[in-house]
C-alpha cells in the first residue's frame, strides 16, 4: 500500500487462504480496492514447474486467470469505486445495549470476544470493583496491541483492561499484573500461521500477596491467580487488538493450547539460584512479569540422571530452532545441577555450547530461511558465519543470552520442561513505548501499575 502512495501501481500476491485477511488489511489501510491477486496454497515446497502452473492457472479467489488479474490490475484505469473516499471512523462504544444475562453471554460468544469458556459479564459494578485494584484512572491510556506487525494497532485504556479482567474471572488485586502484561505491547493472540503463544512468569512480592502457586502443579489449573491472570492477558489481547477471529485476525494453522492461559510464578524462596527478574536487572523486591513469545514446543524430562547431557542435547536439537528455549525446572533439578558443579550461568553456557546442528539442517527451516537468512546474507553475525559453514559443519543454534532458566514446582519429582519462548521484556512494542507516558517504567515492572 505504501508503494501505491508513492505512485507505483502495485499488485500484492498472496495464497488464497489469506483472502479475508488481505481484504481486511486493505480496508483498514484506506485502500479497499487494492488489486490483490491470489494463487493456491501452498507455495512452500512447490517445484518451479508447479509454481509456473500457478502463474498460468486460475486465481482461486477471483475465479479468473491469475495473469489476467495481474495485467488488468496494473493497467486498467482507476474507476469510480477506486476514487471514492475510503475514510471512516469506527464506533468504540463504552456500553452495549442492555439485554438479559443469557442473551449477553451468547452475544459475547458470537462476537468472538471470549475463549468459548464461560465468562463473567463485565457489569458496571464489577468493572468499578476491578478498577480499585490500581491507583491509575480508568481512562488512563495503557498502550497498543495488534495481531501481527503488519496489521493496524488498536489502543486501550485501564478500563478496557479491567473489563477483560472481569470477564476472565480475575480479582482486583491481580489487575496490576494484567495491566503490566497488556502494556508490554506483546499480544498473547498473535495471528501468525505458526500458532505462537505467550508464556508469562511472575517474580517478586506480588506472587505471595495474591497467592500465586509456584509449588505442586505450578503450570497446571490449580490456582485462581495463575489461571485468571493468564486468561485475562489473553482476552485483553484478542479484544483490545481488534479481534482474534480465524481467517481474519487469527491464522494459526494448528492453534495453541497456551492461548487459553499461561501465567506462572517462580519459586524464588525454594530456588538455589537468584530469581529470574534479578538476573535481568530488577531489584529483589520489585514485582515483575516476564513475557516470553513462543509456545511452539514443550519437551519434558526428569533428573538430571547419568546421561542427562545426551538428554538435554536431544531436547535442544529437537527444538524449532527459530524459537529459543526457556528451561522450567523443579527445585530438585536445580539443586542436583549444583551438586554437579553448575550455577545457573554455567549451565546456560553449557547448553549453548552443546546446542549444535548441522548447517544444512539449520537452514532447512521455513522461519530461519524467511527471517534469519536475510540478516546472514547482509553479513550480520553470527548468522553470516552459519551461512558460510559447510553443510555438514555443526553450527551453534542458541546464544547464551537466548536461553533462560526459571525454577518452580512442588518437589514431588525432579522434573523439568524445555519450552519454546523468546524473552520479550527488552523488545517492547515501539508503538506502546513511545505513545504512552510510562517513561521510566521498565517493561514488566508490575509496581508501576499498582
Amino acid at each position, binding site marked *: 500500500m505504501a508503494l501505491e502512495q508513492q505512485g*507505483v501501481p502495485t499488485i500484492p500476491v498472496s495464497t488464497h487462504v489469506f483472502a479475508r485477511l488481505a481484504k481486511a488489511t486493505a480496508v483498514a489501510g484506506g485502500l479497499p480496492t487494492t488489486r490483490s491477486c491470489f494463487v493456491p496454497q501452498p507455495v512452500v515446497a512447490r517445484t518451479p514447474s508447479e509454481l509456473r502452473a500457478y502463474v498460468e492457472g486460475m486465481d482461486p479467489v477471483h475465479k479468473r486467470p491469475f495473469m489476467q488479474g495481474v495485467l488488468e490490475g*496494473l493497467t486498467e484505469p482507476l474507476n469510480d469505486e477506486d476514487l471514492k473516499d475510503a475514510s471512516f471512523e469506527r464506533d468504540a462504544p463504552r456500553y452495549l445495549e442492555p439485554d438479559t444475562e443469557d442473551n449477553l453471554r451468547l452475544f459475547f460468544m458470537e462476537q468472538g470476544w471470549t475463549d468459548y469458556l464461560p465468562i463473567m459479564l463485565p457489569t458496571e459494578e464489577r468493572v468499578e470493583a476491578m478498577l480499585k485494584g490500581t491507583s491509575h484512572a480508568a481512562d488512563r491510556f495503557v498502550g497498543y496491541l495488534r495481531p501481527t506487525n503488519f496489521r493496524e494497532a488498536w489502543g486501550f485504556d485501564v478500563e478496557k483492561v479491567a473489563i477483560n479482567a472481569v470477564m476472565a474471572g480475575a480479582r482486583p488485586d491481580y489487575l496490576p499484573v494484567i495491566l503490566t502484561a497488556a502494556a508490554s505491547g506483546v499480544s498473547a493472540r498473535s495471528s501468525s500461521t505458526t500458532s505462537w503463544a505467550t508464556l508469562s512468569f511472575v517474580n517478586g512480592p506480588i506472587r505471595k500477596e495474591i497467592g500465586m502457586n509456584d509449588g505442586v502443579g505450578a503450570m497446571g489449573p490449580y490456582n485462581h491467580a495463575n489461571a485468571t491472570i493468564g486468561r485475562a492477558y489473553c482476552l485483553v489481547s484478542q479484544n483490545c487488538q481488534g479481534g482474534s477471529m480465524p481467517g481474519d485476525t487469527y491464522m494459526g494453522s494448528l492453534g495453541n493450547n497456551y492461548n487459553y492461559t499461561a501465567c506462572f510464578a517462580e519459586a524464588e524462596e525454594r530456588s538455589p539460584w537468584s530469581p529470574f527478574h534479578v538476573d535481568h536487572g530488577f531489584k529483589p523486591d520489585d514485582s515483575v512479569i516476564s513475557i516470553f513469545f513462543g509456545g511452539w514446543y514443550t519437551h519434558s524430562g526428569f533428573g538430571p540422571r547419568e546421561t542427562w547431557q545426551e538428554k538435554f542435547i536431544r531436547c535442544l536439537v529437537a527444538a524449532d530452532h527459530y524459537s529459543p528455549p526457556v528451561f522450567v525446572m523443579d527445585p530438585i533439578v536445580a539443586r542436583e545441577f549444583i551438586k554437579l558443579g553448575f550455577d545457573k550461568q554455567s549451565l546456560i553456557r553449557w547448553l549453548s555450547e552443546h546446542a549444535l546442528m548441522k548447517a544444512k539442517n539449520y537452514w532447512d527451516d521455513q522461519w530461519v530461511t524467511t527471517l534469519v537468512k536475510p540478516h546472514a546474507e547482509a553479513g550480520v553475525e553470527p548468522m553470516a558465519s552459519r551461512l558460510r559453514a559447510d553443510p555438514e559443519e555443526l553450527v551453534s543454534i542458541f546464544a547464551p543470552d537466548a536461553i533462560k532458566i526459571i525454577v518452580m514446582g512442588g518437589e514431588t519429582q525432579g522434573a523439568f520442561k524445555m519450552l519454546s519462548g523468546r524473552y520479550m521484556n527488552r523488545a517492547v512494542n515501539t508503538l506502546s513505548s513511545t505513545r504512552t507516558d510510562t517513561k521510566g517504567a521498565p517493561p514488566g515492572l508490575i509496581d508501576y501499575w499498582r
Partner: protein
Amino acid sequence: MTKIKVLDPRGYPPKVVGKRLADRPMTLDGKVLYLIDCLFDNSDVFMEQLRQWFAEHIPGCETRVVKPRESWVDDPELRARVAADGDAAIIGVGL
C-alpha cells in the same frame, strides 16, 4: 427477564484514512516492472517463474527482481528505489 448493562471489551480502533491508488499505465510494454520477493519461503522461486512469464509474453517489459532487507518489515530504501525508477510492482508471495 431483567436486562443488565455491560461494558464493551473491545479496544479503540484507529480512524481509517482513505488513500488513493496510483494511476495506471496503459500498457506494461516499455515499462519497468519490479518483482518484489517478500522473502517468504519459496517466494523467490515463484518470482522467478513470474519473471520468465513476462520475458516470454511481454518481452518489452523490463522486470527487476528485488528483495527487502527483512521479511514483513518495511524497507523505505527499497520503496524509494522502486518509486524512483519503476512503473509498476508485484509483491509476493505474502501470507
